[in-house]
């Protein structure tokens, strides 16, 4: 069994679920908010063992680290908790902490790996992405915070990194994309470039459907090869 964790409105994730089911068989769709809806939840760490975790789903099924081979992580936010009082704020923090530990318990079998600041993976600022590209010796659009400056050039070409697969029109863009994914530690990465090939934007939650069936093949390969 495989799982895709996403928001119900994430059309790109739903696109991926359909294609992964055709390629891999059972793929469970799990919304982040389920972590806060009272289904039986366990996260356990015992001496000498890696953490294990399980969550009972509304349909009676279960998402657990032992039975699920790999996870496509499209989480866009920690579980939502309604209310503005101190108790709601406390529960919000607790559920964020617990859901993060839960996702991280999949170890190297979740793509992208969750980050303490974002459940869907490490989110670098635009400035940090461009700085990373510049340090790697690649062109990047300037970054301005405050003040006035020329606007960022529009995105003229895109690329999509999924595991070892890079979908890009030009070899130079593919090389930069592969380097940035390796430098940032992302298995899945979407990038946007100016007409001159300078990095403009990057995201750990790209539109997967942009890559078409080749992207679906790469996702299936990534999940199937997870260890």
């Amino acid at each position, binding site marked *: 069994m495989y799982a895709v964790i996403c928001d119900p409105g994430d059309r790109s994730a739903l696109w991926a679920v359909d294609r992964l089911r055709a390629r891999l068989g059972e793929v469970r769709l799990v919304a982040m908010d389920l972590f*806060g809806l*009272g289904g*039986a*939840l*366990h*996260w*356990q*760490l*015992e*001496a000498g063992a*890696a*953490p294990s975790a399980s969550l009972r789903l509304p349909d009676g099924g279960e998402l657990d680290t032992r039975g699920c081979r790999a996870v496509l992580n499209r989480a866009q936010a920690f579980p939502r908790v309604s209310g503005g009082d101190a108790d709601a704020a*406390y*529960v919000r*923090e*607790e*559920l*964020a*902490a*617990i859901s*993060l*530990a839960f996702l*991280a*318990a999949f170890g190297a079998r979740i793509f992208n790996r969750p*980050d*303490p*600041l974002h459940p869907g993976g*490490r989110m670098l*600022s635009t*400035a*940090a992405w*461009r*700085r990373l590209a*510049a*340090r790697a010796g690649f062109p*990047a659009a*300037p*970054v*301005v*915070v*405050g*003040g006035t*400056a020329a606007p960022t050039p529009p995105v003229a070409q895109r690329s999509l990194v999924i595991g070892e697969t890079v979908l890009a029109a030009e070899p130079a863009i593919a090389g930069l994309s592969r380097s940035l994914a390796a430098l940032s530690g992302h298995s899945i990465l979407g990038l946007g470039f100016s007409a001159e090939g300078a990095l403009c934007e990057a995201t750990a939650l790209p539109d997967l459907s942009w890559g078409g069936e080749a992207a679906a093949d790469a996702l299936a390969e990534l999940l199937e090869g997870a260890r």
Partner: protein
Amino acid sequence: MILLLGSRSDGPMACVHSALERLGVEPAWVDYERPLRSGWAHAAGARLEAKLVQDDGVELDLSGVRAAYARALDHRRFAGYRALDASARAGCDQAHEVLACYLDIGEARVLNPAGAMASNRSKPYQISLIRELGFAVPPTLISNQPEAVREFLRQHRRVIYKSASAVRSIVRELDAEALDRLDAIRACPVQFQALMEGLDIRVHVVGNEVFATACTSPVIDYRYAEGEGSLSPCVLPEDVSARCVALAQGLGLPVAGVDLKRHPDGGWTCFEVNPSPGFSWFEHSTGQPIANAIARLLLAD
């Protein structure tokens, strides 16, 4: 230039400021009690320029910052910011965006980087990392099912509970009174840990330096001993000391407060790593020169 980020009234910040002065260095401040007016940053290729305008109109050029010590990360929690009107808040927010950008991508040594400090937002996530970095950690269960917790208690005999997030909570034992209220966990999962017997040791790691303090207390959470506990400096075995340094480095934290338990059988368990330790309480109680070590780390090449 050395930059201090936080409140001048914060104990650790004041200690580091004094230590820098003793070393002949007058640090620059971004005092969160005095909201910034505006900021500006520009990065092109490897070049990065950034400036802040402080509340008195004086400009602070961040290009000259070689190292920074940061204790407070959210400026919006301070009274000075809350007293601003919407326009002034927008300017202050932008200045802090500039500051965050500079600390994130600039060349300055930052104690500690914001991204590394975030591991403490989830204690179970962090103890997984601590385990991977070579320390024994306490058996831990997070659950919203009372029967699973009772089974965990049967297995480990004595169990404590505490928050899973960075929200501060008093560590308490799962006693008869708490067991009576156990059904409440169905509303929100709670973190439980096997109670580990032994002596609490707080280890402050500063770069490669280690300051260990034994914390005796009649209550489970020594921070709340209310005068009945004591803090005294102690010496760690070399291998434990080295593991503390490796742990802090592995978590990307040049300054860290490592919470250990030394067991009667000589074993060691690590509970948590505080990425922004309030070390001044320990320094005042034991005389350990922790602030001086931080000041020297800020000034190191």
